[in-house]
């Protein structure tokens, strides 16, 4: 079967991409969603705080998902549920399977990658010790509590202060569990400031920076963990080990864009983000293959995902409608001091629209400016009291800022005088 646009994933990114492609005039759109409902991980995020930018109100995850699902349904965009994509070829042949449709293939004109991300498991950290029940990624625990209605633990230690870990510290506490502490390897948290305040501080849950779990104990079920301070080299400091009895260890130690399918399509990935390398249209190195949301890079706010995905939807629509002009020369966006990555990483010089650049810094910087240079020439800057890796930064670049200028763009953090 042929399709103009096939979207892999029916979470917030896939839904927003579909809606914007539809509104740009494309009708032949199919979303492939592996779960039994659309909405992705939002369905288990029953806390509020979603939609402040997009809808100017505070929604829960399922409410936010429902808004986009409604928009998709109003447009009669087809969503194939329980459908697992098994392969995407470089020629954009998508192979998928579902109980209803069996194994089937689609010849897509454009593909939008919106598969989201997965959590880093315990094994990736190689935490020594036993392998009992009671070690969960924060997201698995979230699903058990919020969807299945069960309590995966009572005496809880959380390793990693990513946003899901912080949210789950509060969630487990509200369900009667005792969260003993949140340990963070880095000297700063990877989560949003608002989550640290609302999920830890408000419940007197200690956040132990520069700490890690060095061993897991218990043969069948977790009985305790060993916690230790880490030095500047992030290695445990001998003599600081402390045994903490607990029945549960939750891990919130990073999210990894899930790009196994992208690889099968030949999409080039960034070693920094783990997501595809894209230009300002969010097109990957494979023509007609776009990426958005957490499969591209991990976001903190779903509002940013929706905005980014809408752009991918527009670009894919322009591509299948033949509106896209031949791509000419482009400039690179270089990561200067303090900038870990940017999305996009290149911009076409004849781009007529504003370009949104999303980026993360690589450390905590106080009283600094994020400055944008073309060669030696500074073209813009933004001053802030604090930059942290846990909060994504957004810059808007106007066409007049690159038109007539040569060379590449560099974004760098500089201390304020």
């Amino acid at each position, binding site marked *: 079967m042929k399709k103009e646009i096939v979207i892999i994933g029916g979470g917030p990114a896939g839904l927003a991409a579909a809606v914007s492609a539809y509104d740009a005039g494309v009708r032949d759109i199919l979303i492939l969603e*592996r779960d039994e409902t659309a909405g992705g991980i939002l369905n288990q995020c029953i806390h509020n705080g979603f939609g402040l930018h997009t809808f100017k109100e505070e929604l829960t995850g399922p409410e936010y998902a429902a808004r986009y699902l409604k928009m998709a349904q109003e447009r009669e965009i087809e969503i194939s549920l*329980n459908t*697992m994509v*098994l392969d995407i070829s470089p020629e954009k042949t998508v192979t998928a*399977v*579902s*109980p*209803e*449709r*069996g*194994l089937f293939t689609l010849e897509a004109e454009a593909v939008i990658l919106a598969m989201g991300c*997965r*959590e880093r*498991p*315990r*094994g*990736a950290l*190689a935490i*020594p*010790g*036993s*392998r*009992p*029940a*009671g070690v*969960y*990624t924060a*997201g*698995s625990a979230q*699903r*058990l*509590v919020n*969807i*299945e*209605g*069960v*309590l*995966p*633990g*009572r005496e809880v230690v959380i390793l990693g202060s990513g946003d899901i870990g912080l949210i789950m510290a509060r969630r487990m506490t509200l*369900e*009667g569990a005792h969260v003993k502490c949140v340990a963070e390897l880095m000297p700063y948290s990877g989560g949003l400031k608002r989550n640290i305040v609302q999920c830890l501080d408000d419940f007197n849950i200690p956040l132990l920076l520069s700490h890690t779990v*060095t*061993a897991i*104990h218990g*043969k*069948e*079920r977790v009985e305790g963990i060993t916690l230790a301070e880490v030095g500047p080299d992030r290695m445990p400091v001998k003599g600081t080990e402390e045994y903490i009895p607990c*029945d*549960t260890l939750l891990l919130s130690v990073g999210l990894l864009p899930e790009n196994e399918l992208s690889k099968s399509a030949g999409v080039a990935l960034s070693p920094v983000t783990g997501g595809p390398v894209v230009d300002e249209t969010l097109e990957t190195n494979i023509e007609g293959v776009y990426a958005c949301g957490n499969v591209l890079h991990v976001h903190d706010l779903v509002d940013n995902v929706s905005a980014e995905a809408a752009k991918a939807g527009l670009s894919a629509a322009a591509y299948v409608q033949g509106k896209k002009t031949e791509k000419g020369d482009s400039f690179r966006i270089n990561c200067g001091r303090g900038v870990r990555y940017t999305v996009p990483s290149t911009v076409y010089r004849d781009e007529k629209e504003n370009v949104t650049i999303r980026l993360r810094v690589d450390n905590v910087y106080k009283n600094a400016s994020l400055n944008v240079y073309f060669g030696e020439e500074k073209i813009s800057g933004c001053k802030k009291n604090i930059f942290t890796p846990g909060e994504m930064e957004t810059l808007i670049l106007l066409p007049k800022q690159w038109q007539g200028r040569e060379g590449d763009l560099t974004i760098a953090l500089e201390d304020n005088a």
Partner: protein
Amino acid sequence: MFDAVIIGGGISGSAVARELSRYQGHFALLEKENDIGEGTTKANSAIIHAGFDAAEGTLMAKMNVRGNLLTEKLAKDLSFPFKRIGALVVCHEGDDREGLQKLLDRGIANGVEGLRIVEREELKELEPNIADDVVCALYAPTSGIVCPFLMNIALAENAVANGVEVHLQEKVEKIEKTAEGYRLTTSKGVIETRAVINAAGLYADTLHNMVSEHKEEIIARRGEYYLFDKDMGSQARHTIFSLPTKMGKGILITPTVHGNLIAGPTAEDIPDKEDTETTPEGLGKVRKDLSRNITGINTRSIITTFAGLRAHRPQHEFLLGEPEDAPFFFDCLGIESPGLSAAPAVGEYIASLVAEKLQLTKKEDFIETREAIPDPKEMTPEEYNELIRREPAYGNIICRCERVSEGEILAAIHSPIPALTTDAVKRRVRAGMGRCQSGFCLPKVLEILHREFPEKPLSDFCKSGQGSAYILGTVKEELA
């Protein structure tokens, strides 16, 4: 009254059970855990060794070479994954080349076929990522890799199909000699049997010492491993060994039958036979040696670490057969490496001893083959679609990393030895075995288990052993 009771559902016990089920009689296999293969069998290098390593004339050597020979047909008959990928024992610049020659001579004496020493140029062809300072290697083309879980399960399931009773969660606590044979007192009651087969792995010494004055000792020798994601699976094409040392075969690197890469094991004697903890020291040792023989191994692709215990006998030789002071009691004791490779031969040998002693006659209706759970990944698109038409659950992917469908999970749950824990499901169909390590599929697998056994609360479902429950309560339980 049983004719024979096998104690231990690991690879050896299951192999004996399967071979014994060729004969007429009343047999049982007792396993103390929630599933078979929960001990040494589930955590090792998953290699069917060629047989050049054990000393000439030993049972280890004989059983290894014979076991290797039997595995190919067994894998076909019982449908478990086995690949004869070959092994290389590599020799670095400045290493003792004579050691390699000795291995070659020993292998030839043991009857291993096809062994030869390959020089750098050919070696590079065989193994493109071989380290620069490797000058030559012993090439053993008959060496293979296997899925130890499925090999174990296949043997036991075939035994069940041929009439052997498998009792899970039944631990033998006492063995007494009786006029007719032996009386076993177990965690569930009393069992009378004419003969006993002791395949209790790490605890084979305890059982042996209950009936014999010739005392035996089994020491737990721990080995730690790294498991890598499938992007590293073709980094090595063969099983790569370093020249062996006194403490074992050293760190090896090998692809697995499922396309992953495994590195390990360490060798450390420990006092606690239950201590399968990994350690910073052990993992550090493996990590240090990762790039010694093969280049390009990326530690970012590590999916998990694990440790297994070998049942080490100080004599470093299998003990197979009856102690002179305990007739009708058959030991399979000291089954450490190459125990997995030897298992088919050990099963054949012990079964023949038992059959002779009990004067058993062969069945005419022995079922030689066993079918595996359908694996869509091995099917043509037409076959897969036909399967989904018949059973739509095979089209519902539950474990995204390993692409395991609901149909496969259901088949595992309702298999001849039912998978009642998430680990038992994982070992049969690989749900949770992949890169996310069950982060996404665990809640779904629990849900499916619960759906199939609705009378049991969700908090009854375990990871593996009793007490390894995932769920400790419900939300809002104070309000209930």
